C-alpha cells in the first residue's frame, strides 16, 4: 500500500466506525416485508418502553414525528436502505411506527390521484 497522504481516508471518507450491519445485528431482511423506498412512515405516541430500543431506533422515532419516506429515513440516518428497513420494521412490529397503506403502491395511482399530483406539480 502506498503511504502518500492523498491515499488516506479521513472522516466520512473512511466509512462509518460502526459497520452498518452491526446496527441491525447482522440482519439483512426486514421482518415486515412491505416497505418500499417511498412508503411513508410516521411515529406515534405509545406506552411501550423505549429503554429496550437502540439509539438508532430512538433516532428514527424522533425523525418520524412528521411523516417521512423510508428513503428519507435512511438518508437522514446515514444508513444503507436495508438497515433503515430492518430498524423500521422492528418499530412497526412494536407499534411505535405506522405506515401508509401499502396496497396503494401495488395497484398504482388512479386518475383522481394523478390529477391531484398534476395540479400540485403545476402549482410549485
Amino acid at each position, binding site marked *: 500500500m502506498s503511504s502518500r497522504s492523498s491515499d488516506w481516508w479521513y472522516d466520512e471518507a473512511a466509512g462509518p466506525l460502526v459497520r452498518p450491519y452491526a446496527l441491525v445485528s447482522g440482519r439483512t431482511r426486514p421482518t415486515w416485508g412491505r416497505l418500499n423506498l417511498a412508503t411513508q412512515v410516521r411515529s406515534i405516541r405509545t406506552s411501550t418502553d423505549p429503554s429496550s430500543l437502540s439509539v438508532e431506533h430512538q433516532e428514527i422515532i424522533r425523525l418520524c414525528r412528521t*411523516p417521512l*419516506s423510508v428513503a428519507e429515513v435512511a*438518508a437522514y440516518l446515514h444508513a*444503507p436502505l436495508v438497515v433503515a428497513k430492518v430498524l423500521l420494521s422492528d418499530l412497526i412490529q412494536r407499534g411505535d411506527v405506522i405506515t401508509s397503506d401499502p396496497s396503494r*403502491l401495488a395497484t398504482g395511482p388512479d386518475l383522481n390521484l394523478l390529477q391531484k*399530483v*398534476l395540479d400540485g406539480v403545476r402549482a410549485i
Partner: protein
Amino acid sequence: MVSVRSEQREELLVPSSVKIVVAGGFGVGKTTLVGAVSEITPLRTEELLTEAGTEIDDLAGVEGKNTTTVALDFGRITINPEVVLYLFGTPGQDRFWFMWDELSHGAIGAVVLVDTRRLDSGFGAIDFFERRGIPFVVAVNCFDGSHSYTEDELRHALDVTTNVPLVLCDARDRESCKVVLARVIEHAMSKLDHAAIA
C-alpha cells in the same frame, strides 16, 4: 391553539406517496433535474452491494474499499397533506439494473433524460420502461443551449415513436422541469384512460 381533537386526527394521518423515476446515463443531469423541482436539497441514500458487485467494480480510486455502494439521489414535492411525490434518480451505471425494479414498482411513470452528445445512453432505460409498460417521456437536456436536432431526427436516433412524448428541456430550470413532470403525469393519465376504454 388548535383543538385537541384535530391534533389527534392529525397524528393518525400518514400521507400516500407517489413516485416518478428519473432515468438516464451517467452525468446526463438527473440529479440536476431532481434538484430543480424538489422542495428539499436532493438527498442521497445508499444500498450496500454484495461481493458479486465489487468484483466487477471498475471505479478508479476506490479499490481499497470492501463494499460498493449504489447511490440513489432523490427529491420530494409535497402535493398536499395527503400526497407526497418523490423523484428518484436511477443509478447511472448499467450494472445496477436490479435496483430499477424496486424504484419503478408502483411508479406513476418515468423520465428518460438524455443529452444530444450521447443519445445512446438512453437506450437501456427506454427499453426497460417499454418492456414493463411503465409510462415514460424522453426529455432531451439541452443545457448547452444548442437545439441542433429536429424532433424527427431525435426520434429517429432514439428509435421512439410518436406514442412516446419527447420534450426538450433545461434540467437546471425549474419551469422547464415542471413541464417535463407534467408531461409524465399527463401521459400516465392518458394511458389509464385508454385502458379504461379498451
